[in-house]
């Protein structure tokens, strides 16, 4: 193992040296591996319907309103704690998967329903809906390609303090509010400009202004009422309820290869309990989602069964996945090139091994 203590090799900006290299080597906008699925089967999997997402959204809204009502009713006593615990997870965690599925337009068949849920969830997450729509498109084009992917959650070498603090949203919220405030002032950063077309940039500013205006109104209400309650309902749940989003979301790519063009090697599928799968809307089938983003969340388990012969074995639980990841993270502190090599089953087709070979010397088996 080659130790490179304290020396960062990766430039995660989207307009820097790694960006130039990714374009030069053909890693940017590359053609990615897809497991063979017949057109007939894929057409069935891709089919949209409003039913499952309507059912889930009614449950979701009912749970949000119910837990908020309980929190308000018991405000001032310890009985409000369980209500805000539930409300926080619904607001600060499950909004992530609604944002995600609404953004892809796969949750509902009806377009406006996807758009409404996308806007609401973006607000809950303190994400600029326009910026994040484009950053997510880039994430799908260049998944974990350094210098190209705008959504790499854990950069190398990993920042453990940031990682831990994000379970209560401290750093994320700070940067999100700064970004929204900057956008509200009419400023779009060079990184944002690198993936948002000029014709769309005015929408970034409008969304920033709307979000910031709502937060100012919430703060004003809190001052007026001399109470934390308005902030417990709007804004703060992004912190006290985001732990589930971070716990599940980190597992998508953490510790795996970067700069490859095969989602089987840089993305993780993890089996999860039914409650987490409701909160996460089946995004635990993450390899499947990246390979076939057209497949709605409710069809991902079926897709998983169809293609799992060609994928690395899924982690059997969240706990198992973290036990697998933790030693890799520790090793990456000393050597940022270290990563966990995903084993493909013997029946799987390898793909573009020249990219993988570059880093193989550093891979942990």
């Amino acid at each position, binding site marked *: 193992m080659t130790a490179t203590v304290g020396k960062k090799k990766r430039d995660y900006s989207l307009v820097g040296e790694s960006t130039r290299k990714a374009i030069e080597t053909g890693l940017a906008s590359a053609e990615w591996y897809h497991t063979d699925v017949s057109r007939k089967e894929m057409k069935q999997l891709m089919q949209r319907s409003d039913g499952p997402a309507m059912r889930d959204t009614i449950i979701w809204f009912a749970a949000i309103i119910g837990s908020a009502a309980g929190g308000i009713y018991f405000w001032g006593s310890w009985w409000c704690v369980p209500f805000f615990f539930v409300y926080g997870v619904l607001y600060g965690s499950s909004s992530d998967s609604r944002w995600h599925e609404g953004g892809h337009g796969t949750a509902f068949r009806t377009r406006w329903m996807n758009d409404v849920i996308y806007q609401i969830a973006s607000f809950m997450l303190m994400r600029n809906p*326009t910026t994040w729509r484009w950053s997510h498109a880039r994430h799908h084009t260049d998944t974990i390609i350094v210098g190209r992917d705008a959504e790499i959650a854990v950069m190398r070498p990993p920042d453990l303090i940031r990682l831990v603090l994000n379970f209560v949203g401290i750093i994320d919220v700070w940067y999100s509010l700064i970004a929204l405030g900057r956008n509200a002032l009419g400023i779009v950063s060079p990184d944002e400009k690198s993936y948002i077309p000029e014709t769309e940039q005015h929408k970034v500013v409008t969304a920033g202004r709307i979000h910031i205006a709502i937060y100012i109104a919430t703060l004003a209400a809190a001052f007026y009422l001399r109470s934390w309650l308005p902030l417990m309902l709007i804004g703060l749940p992004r912190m006290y309820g985001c732990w589930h989003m971070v716990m599940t979301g980190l597992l998508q790519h953490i510790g795996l290869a970067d700069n490859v063009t095969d989602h089987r090697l840089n993305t993780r599928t993890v089996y999860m309990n039914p409650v987490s799968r409701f909160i996460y809307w089946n995004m635990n089938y993450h390899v499947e989602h990246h390979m076939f*983003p057209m497949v709605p969340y409710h069809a991902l388990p079926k897709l998983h069964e169809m293609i799992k012969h060609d994928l690395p074995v899924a982690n059997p639980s969240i706990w198992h996945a973290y036990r697998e990841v933790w030693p890799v993270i520790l090793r990456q502190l000393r050597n940022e090139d270290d990563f966990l090599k995903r084993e493909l089953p013997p029946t799987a087709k390898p793909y573009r091994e020249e990219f993988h070979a570059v880093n193989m010397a550093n891979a942990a088996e």
Partner: protein
Amino acid sequence: MSEWVEACSEGDVETEDVIRFDHGGRTFAIYRSPDDEFFATDGFCTHEKMHLADGLVMDDIIECPKHNGRFNYKTGEAKGAPVCINLKTYPVKVEAGKVMIQLD
């Protein structure tokens, strides 16, 4: 100069579906609408180089398989982010069971 080119047979495209047609170094998408009319557009999405024929046809919309960008395949209109540039469409006629598209 424009020319009519045979793209496929009627039966090659299922109702509410799309197939890919390559000709003269270019690629096209041939659609069959839910009411069995045929349409043709450029084969690649205008966002990135992705074959629309791998996408999903819903009513008069083709959804791109990469980032779910949507176009009206009858008019070529891009329906919003991440697709902002309209798709080029081509005249289509069906003669003796053959789907013909007019290329420029």
